[in-house]
Every structure is written in structure tokens, then in C-alpha cells.
């Protein structure tokens, strides 16, 4: 029942926006066309599309993020049962995290974490 309600709540989110937009369509004026529908560029005429090759300067951050986020996903179950597992679990996870921290230090020394 819990997850069924979660599903219903997701539906609620969609319905709220959908209902709101339908109401707005009924009440709001609609007069599209002309420069109003161009993408806003501070009053100038829009130059080209923005769907261009975009240098995502942070893709290396994204890579490191991925590693640490997956690591966090591994750590959650460990954290829940840690009380019962005791010292061995502490050592094992300690080694696991240390390996990742070495990775972070490596990225740091390589200058990946510098924003240029």
C-alpha cells in the first residue's frame, strides 16, 4: 500500500500541473506570435539556436561524482546493519573508502578540481 500511494502521489504531481495549465488555458489570454515567441536575449533579436556543442567544463566533476555517488549507495546498507557487524565491517569499509579517497587525491593533484 505504501508504494501504491507513492505512485498515486506521483500522479497527483502530474494532475496538479496539468489541471493548473488547463485552467490557465481557459482564463488566460492567448495571443502568440511575433518577437514575443522568440527566445529572450536581452531585447536583441535571437541569434541562432542554443542547441550547440556545449563545452561542459565539469564533465570530470561528473565522473568523480558518479564514483562517489555509487559508493554512497553501497554504504547505505552497511550503515544500517553496522551495529551488528562490528569491527570487521569497519575495517573493510575503511579500506573501500580509502581506495576512493586515494582516487580523489589523485584527481586533486592532477588539477581536475580546479575550475578554469
Amino acid at each position, binding site marked *: 500500500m505504501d508504494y501504491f500511494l507513492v505512485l498515486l502521489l506521483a500522479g497527483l504531481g502530474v494532475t496538479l500541473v496539468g489541471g493548473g495549465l488547463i485552467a490557465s488555458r481557459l482564463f488566460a489570454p492567448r495571443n502568440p506570435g511575433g518577437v514575443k515567441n522568440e527566445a529572450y536575449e536581452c531585447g536583441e533579436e535571437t541569434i541562432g539556436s542554443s542547441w550547440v556543442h556545449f563545452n561542459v567544463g565539469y564533465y570530470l566533476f561528473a565522473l568523480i561524482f558518479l564514483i562517489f555517488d555509487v559508493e554512497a549507495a553501497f554504504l547505505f546498507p552497511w550503515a544500517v546493519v553496522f551495529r551488528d557487524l562490528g569491527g570487521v565491517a569497519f575495517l573493510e569499509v575503511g579500506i573501500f573508502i580509502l581506495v576512493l*579517497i586515494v582516487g580523489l587525491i589523485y584527481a586533486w593533484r592532477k588539477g581536475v578540481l580546479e575550475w578554469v
Partner: protein
Amino acid sequence: MDMLDFFPSSILQAADTSWQTVTIAQRASSAFRDHDLSGTIGYLLLGLLFTAGLLTVLGLVLIYAERKLAGHFQCRLGPMRVGWHGILQSAADGLKLLLKEDIVPENADKLLHLGAPVLSLMATVLTLAILPLSPTLQVVDLNIGVIYVTAVTSLGVLAILIAGWSSNNKWSLLGAMRAGAQIISYELSATLSLLVMVLLSGSLQLSEIIQSQSDGWWIWKSHLVGVIAFVTFLISTTAELNRTPFDLPEGESELTGGFHTEYSGLRFAFFFLAEFVNMFVASALIVTLFFGGWMPFYIGGWDGFNSIMGLIPPGIWFAGKSAFFIFLLMWFRWTFPRLRIDQLMSLEWKILLPVGFINIFLAALIVLFEWHF
């Protein structure tokens, strides 16, 4: 004075808590087991209506509070015209946004442009529903609550990225890219802080995390570990909420409006609503994890004081504590100047992340040797 003397074990007796969590979802499933179909549907509808109502009320109240506080911080009065001291201002604004034309740029990806506010509000609704507002006032109590929260809140990033990309506007794209980098970075240290609290309380379920604080809130009980986790969590949620001093994705003075530049009318209103309600979600999480959720404030041995504190209903405690942290977030906005993007990235990757890792080790040690109270 030794820490242990300062927090006497009588704290344990002071909080005689017999609170049993009963969620709306549990009521629905017990009605379902009794083959009570109308009861089941009734409770499910109650859950949905409660969440929708909470969303609306929070939106109206928080937007009013933000504007009023902003006014007073700047020695202005804030909204004063609509209703008594402008109390109906945000309702009037909502109505105005409803009546405004819904402009979609002609080069935009229409479907994704519509999908982004839907996703944004959906993420907010989903997190709002699992917050334990009081023992009897919780819509769903998932046993994987903490993981669920991290998972669902990252849908919000997706909404921002989609909004920025689909608008086909340079400002939107730049804002969305900044937001993406910022939010995923700070999500790491937020997750690490959550992990510390899971370690200490030994549960992922939000109601159980609160129950584990019946003998004292984690912020007192866990020595320094809880305080460090709290501070990192506060900083990183402020960043995840895109609030000043981390409001680079929206920075009005540099990016016009960031990812929502091309949104008008109700679509903009939904982004705005989601953002403000997320502020409550973040404060409520802080309260739940570190400040005992709906638990009253007890001081060990002060029986008279404790009995007075116990008279205040848990829901009021939760609301009051959350209101304090919402106030703190609004206060930040008028106190700290905006960070530069390189400062932002190095704060996370060079300070908060290493601190978070050290903190996890400390927390594990504390749990291992049972040093916490």
C-alpha cells in the same frame, strides 16, 4: 565539566515516549485488510488531499514569509496592500500568474518544456509525502526513507536540466548547466551527512530515526559528529536549493533568470512553488535527522519544565523547528554574498567532501565503541 556530566543519564527517563507512528498509508492498508473498500479509498484520497493541501498552504505561507522577511531585513515593510499586512499577497500573485499568458518560445522543445515543471513539482510532492510531521500525521512511511529522499530529490536536478535545455535559450542553458554541476556536487556531501545519521540511528526509516532520538536529539547525543554532519548538511542543502549564497544557476544579475528565463505564467509558478516547498522539505529533513523531529525539547531532571514541554503537541514542535530552519535559510539570503563558481566547486570538493569522509570514519568509530549517549 565533563560532557557526560553535562548530559546526565536522566535524559533517558525524562523522555517517556510512547508515541506510535500511524501513517495514512497504514490506515489505508488496515482498512484494505478488513475488506473495507470505501475506507481504503477514503484514506488514500485523504493522503492525496492532505499532500496537495500542505503543498498549497506551504507555498502561500513561505512566499509571503520570504517577501515579508526580505522587506524587514532591508528596513522596508514588504507587501502591505492585499489584506491585513499583505497577508493575501501570495494568493493574489498566484491568481495573477494563473491569468497570465503562457508563452512558449517557438523554437523550444514543446514536450520537454511542459515536462520540466511537472517533474519538478512531482519530486516535491513525493518528498513532502514521507515527512513525519507528527506521529499520526505522515502520509507514507517508507522503510527506505532516507534513500528514497536522496533518489527523489535528484529528480529535481533533472527537471532543471530539462527546463534549461528545452527552452532553447542561451541563458537557460548556462543556468541549467551550472545548476547541474552545483547540485550533483553538493548532493555528495548531503548524502555523506545522511549516511552519518543512518549509521548513528541504524535505520533508514524516518519515523524510526525520530524514535531513536527519544532519549535526546542526535545533535546533542553524538558528540561532534552530529554537529559536523549538521553543518555540512545545512550548507549542501542550501546549495541544492539554489538559494543565496549558492544561487548561481539563477543569478538574476548575470543570467537574467537562469533555467526558468523562458517560463511564464503558471509554468513559472510551479517552479517557484516547488522551490519554496523544497525549502520546507530541507528544513523538515534537518529537523528529523538532527533535532528530534516532532519530539519535544526535554531537559533531564527538570520534570516541571518537561511536563510543560510535553503539553505542546508534536505537530507544533515539528512546525516550529522547521520554521526556525526556514528562517535561517531566508536569513542567509540577506547575509552572504554570492559565491563565484570556482569558489563554489572548491568549497565542495576540497573542504566539504574530505570533511564528510573523515566524519563518517568518526561516526563509525563512535557507533563501534558505543561512545554516543
